[in-house]
């Protein structure tokens, strides 16, 4: 057990710095609750690498994901939130204190908010790993510019796949969108996509699996799939994959915090996990709707529940 006098202490440590985490931090820091956030990637999370966000309330014309993320970060920092660039490796329940093993050493917190969100899943086909970042990509806003005047294949049929397909049309001459079953994106996005289909910029291939990414001379040349039981090939210069989300909950394995069957974190009606004083919000929470707006709302709710928890359990931290 860590000696509480030797280890940096905070009232609240938030694991992650996406919309749920930053919204929670806005609420806790405005109430002078000492709050530290840990982010291993980019503040804003997946929202920051999303080209355009059209359904976050308050932005009539939509907003770039990067700008939204930057605004959330600035707002949280304005009230005193501190974002540490690093990773939380383990959480241990030590009663009044939770001990976090981090890349910056051990830290103690009276309350913890898990808001680690998700990353894009891989499809797990031959060629995917081999050509990673050399023809296979998961971030359109990062890597799309390398495909100016080239052909692309995009794999997926959800909101992200459709949104990023439309973004990538600004670079690519043509995009083949490979959808395993049917398009699951919202009606609004599907209607927008149709304009690009009508213009000949995008061809949608429904009921098409992606079986292999093939290349030669260190470059991707085609995607091999199956459609109606027949082998099909799509010549391409690159592939972007948006086939769903993988929860960032590996660090919780063995912690005693309960996960559901797809490794999302279970919580009660107060967004508290089965470890007292450890809360969860956003895409990582079992039952979450995977929307930026709902993540932000959950972050605010979690902050209020954390305040109640702290008022009932603790005295202010004295470092």
């Amino acid at each position, binding site marked *: 057990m860590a000696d509480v006098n030797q280890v940096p202490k905070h009232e609240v440590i938030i694991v992650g710095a996406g919309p749920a985490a930053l919204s929670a931090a806005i609420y806790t820091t405005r109430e002078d609750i000492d709050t530290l956030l840990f982010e291993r990637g980019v503040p804003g999370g997946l929202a920051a690498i999303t080209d355009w966000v059209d359904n976050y309330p308050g932005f009539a014309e939509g907003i770039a994901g990067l700008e939204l993320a930057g605004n959330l970060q600035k707002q949280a920092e304005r009230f005193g939130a501190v974002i540490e*660039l690093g990773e939380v490796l383990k959480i241990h329940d030590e009663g009044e204190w939770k001990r976090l093993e981090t890349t910056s050493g051990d830290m103690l917190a009276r309350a913890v908010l898990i808001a680690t969100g998700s990353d894009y899943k891989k499809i797990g086909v031959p060629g995917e790993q081999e050509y990673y970042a050399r023809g296979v990509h998961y971030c359109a806003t990062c*890597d799309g510019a390398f495909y100016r005047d080239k052909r692309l294949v995009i794999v997926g049929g959800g909101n992200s796949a459709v949104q990023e397909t439309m973004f990538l049309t600004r670079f690519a001459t043509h995009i083949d969108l490979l959808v395993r079953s049917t398009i699951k994106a919202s009606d609004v996005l599907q209607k927008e996509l149709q304009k690009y289909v009508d213009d000949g910029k995008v061809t949608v291939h429904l009921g098409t699996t992606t079986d292999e990414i093939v290349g030669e001379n260190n470059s991707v040349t085609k995607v091999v799939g199956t459609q109606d039981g027949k082998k099909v090939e799509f010549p391409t210069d690159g592939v972007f994959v948006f086939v769903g989300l993988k929860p960032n909950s590996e660090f919780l394995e063995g912690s005693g915090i309960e996960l559901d069957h797809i490794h999302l974190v279970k919580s009660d009606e107060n967004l508290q996990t089965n470890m007292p004083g450890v809360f969860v919000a956003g895409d990582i929470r079992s039952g979450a709707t995977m929307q930026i707006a709902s993540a932000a709302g959950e972050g605010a709710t979690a902050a209020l529940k954390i305040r109640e928890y702290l008022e009932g359990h603790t005295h202010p931290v004295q470092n």
Partner: protein
Amino acid sequence: MVKNITIFTTTTCAYCPMVKKYLGAKGLKYDEVNLDENPQRQQEALAISGALTVPVTVITKQDDTKEVVVGYNLAKLAPAVA
């Protein structure tokens, strides 16, 4: 010791400002090549990094040896600019 630093970026890349912010916090100056504004330099970035991605940070040391950090990777970037 670092002699100079060049970062290849794009306008929409979320990880690029993170690298710039990190270097700025360390008091390190850098040159930025935005590949949206300079698409003719994409091949240069690819040749240096072997990857079709940004950010690519090229750190030239005093002895003119170079270290290349692909992506926002503090585990590699921090020792490279130390």
